């Protein structure tokens, strides 16, 4: 029985071990204290700056290019009428949807990877994306429904799939490995159902369905922004409030119990939050591939700190999605290639690299 319960810190990576002791403790007068890790803090700030910068550039990109200075001027309300219409009515909502979707996917991915204790255990691999897709396809293929109905279908599909995975993985608690394998099984079933729905559709609906399945930000407007924003405002603080428990749970359930974490409760709460975030993001933009998988991994490599890295992952997700959307528009022209294709290609390459390095580190 080699390698069972391998500690999160690998013995031949002394840097990672040392980093658990990093950071400065900040105490307030009221007796509260918080540990502040300068490197993580810097990474978060830099990612926020990068996301905002990319957003401004993305707003300026399109068939009618607008210089960054004018974009900023318009955003604070001093632009001319034409630019104002393009920015606030057409491009700003799209960028905001992109930011929120990326944020939700990054956070959801970090939560899932932490709970499943596996760098590949992200919601898009574990069937949530396929489940949400099944919900959307049912609406597209069986009812040829409106965009709003499709969004609703995806939301319901994602939530039902998340619930199903949790219940099937439950057996006196949810273990990481059982969660992963049940997710894989559910993923296979959902993939088959989606294939079936596509073969049932006529070619127009099938094309619409396949386009939706790639994930795109085209034509997103304020209608998608508000629900997502509301959800993020509620869930992000909730998740961050439980981050301590999650971090302890990475040491194993028994240890966390002993340290006073109510393991199953925290896990249920966080998984519910992750499912909601992922389902809502998928409903808004389609199952954008691999953001949930790569964002937490990249964030972790930037901060160099163990633990779930929730906030950096979320902002990394937002940055990734906006940059990918910008890249697809620059490389292929406005609205030619959906953002999901770009993240899919980049994510696929990254996945390969990740598999090779994780193998070398003995985590696969």
């Amino acid at each position, binding site marked *: *029985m080699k390698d069972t319960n391998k500690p999160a810190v690998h013995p031949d990576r002394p840097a990672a071990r040392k980093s658990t002791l990093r950071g400065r403790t900040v105490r307030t007068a009221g007796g509260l204290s918080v540990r502040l890790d300068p490197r993580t803090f810097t990474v978060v700030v830099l990612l926020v700056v990068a996301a905002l910068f990319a957003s401004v550039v993305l707003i300026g990109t399109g068939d009618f290019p607008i210089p960054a200075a004018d974009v900023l001027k318009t955003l604070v309300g001093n632009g001319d009428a034409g630019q104002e219409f393009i920015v606030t009515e057409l491009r700003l909502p799209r960028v905001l949807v992109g930011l929120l979707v990326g944020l939700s996917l990054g956070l959801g991915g970090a939560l899932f990877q932490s709970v499943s204790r596996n760098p590949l255990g992200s919601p898009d691999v574990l069937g949530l994306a396929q489940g949400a897709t099944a919900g959307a396809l049912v609406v597209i293929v069986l009812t040829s429904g409106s965009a709003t109905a499709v969004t609703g279908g995806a939301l319901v599909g994602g939530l039902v799939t998340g619930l199903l995975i949790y219940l099937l993985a439950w*057996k006196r608690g949810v273990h990481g490995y059982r969660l992963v394998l049940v997710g*894989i*099984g559910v993923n296979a079933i959902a993939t*088959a159902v989606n294939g079936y729905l596509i073969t049932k559709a006529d070619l127009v609906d099938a094309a619409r369905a*396949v386009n939706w399945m790639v994930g795109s930000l085209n034509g997103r407007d304020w209608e998608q922004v508000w629900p997502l924003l509301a959800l993020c405002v509620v869930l992000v603080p909730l998740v961050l409030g439980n981050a301590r428990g999650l971090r302890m749970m990475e040491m194993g359930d028994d240890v966390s119990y002993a340290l006073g974490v109510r393991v199953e409760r925290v896990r249920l709460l966080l998984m519910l939050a992750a499912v909601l975030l992922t389902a809502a993001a998928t409903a808004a933009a389609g199952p954008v591939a691999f953001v949930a998988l790569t964002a937490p991994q990249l964030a972790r490599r930037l901060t160099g700190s163990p633990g779930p890295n929730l906030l950096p992952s979320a902002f990394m997700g937002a940055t990734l999605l906006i940059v990918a959307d910008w890249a697809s528009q620059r490389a292929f022209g406005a609205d030619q290639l959906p953002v999901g*294709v770009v993240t899919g290609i980049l994510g696929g390459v990254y996945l390969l690299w990740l598999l090779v390095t994780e193998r070398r580190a003995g985590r696969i």
Partner: protein
Amino acid sequence: MIVDSPPEHRTVTPTAASPKRHAIRAAGLLVSLGILVLVALASIAIGAKELSLEQVWHGLFHDTGTYGDVVVGERLSRTVLGLLAGAALGLSGAVLQALTRNPLADPGLLGINAGASAAVVTAITFFGVTSVSGYVWFAFLGAAAVGALVWFLGGSRSATPVRLALAGTAISAALYGYLQAVMIMDNAALGKMRFWTVGSLASATDETIKQVLPFLLVGTVVALFLARPLNAVAMGDDTARALGANLNRTRALSMAAATVLCGAATAACGPIVFVGLMIPHVVRSFTGPDLRWILPYATILSPVLLLGADVLGRIVARPSEIQVGIVTAVLGGPVFIFLVRRRRTAQL
């Protein structure tokens, strides 16, 4: 805690098995063959168009070109393809499970089918290959590439069934993403490919069968002859070496056989998951761990599952039909989850 432990060395009891037990198992093999014949007949007799047994008989043995005879002819090639592809998938699943000592190995689950599919779609869309005999080589290439990757990952000291299955699923997700990107760029490809990518026997023709038959035969024969050396591999590297097994040759041959079998099956009928996972588990429950029995049983019983699923898909959705790949996934998914939840498998 039982998280992620490496596979137990499967204990192969070198039974000086009593002749009686041998006789029972051989008889079981005959019974399975009988079941296979029945399912194959059902696959010819049952379909969207209802035929009387008399018409089926007429179509099989006195083909005069009536409408019923044509239907029977089409169902016959479909059934033959189902037999071949089913055997190929089941065998490659059993060989992969023995080779990687991973109870959750399945060509579909490890992403090998997805690799073959991605290569076939590439061949059809970008290289204009149209015949099965042309793109079967691409299917081998794709299957071999993913197979090599899985092999590389599985060779890691800490590789566990869970991690391998997860890696395979992630690889499949990436490859299916690629398929979708191809399909949205090209509506003509979507029209053709959406039926092929779910895994179906409906497009079977005598031509397809002829083109993949040599590969499937070679793969099957090689795989069946590997039973003995694979038995040794299952005992762990050191024991196998001590027993005089040529580890590297066995591994290379097994991997080649599994790749050829599942590449050819995928080229002929698209990616089909879970057949290679379910049948070896079912077989193992009554033959025990001896591959000399598992492999022949898997060869006979896997087509029973595939053809049965195909017939089921035709009955359930009359007058249309559900593709066999979808039926096996919907049936196999719950079986997979059951295996996962069962304590013993989880500990493997």
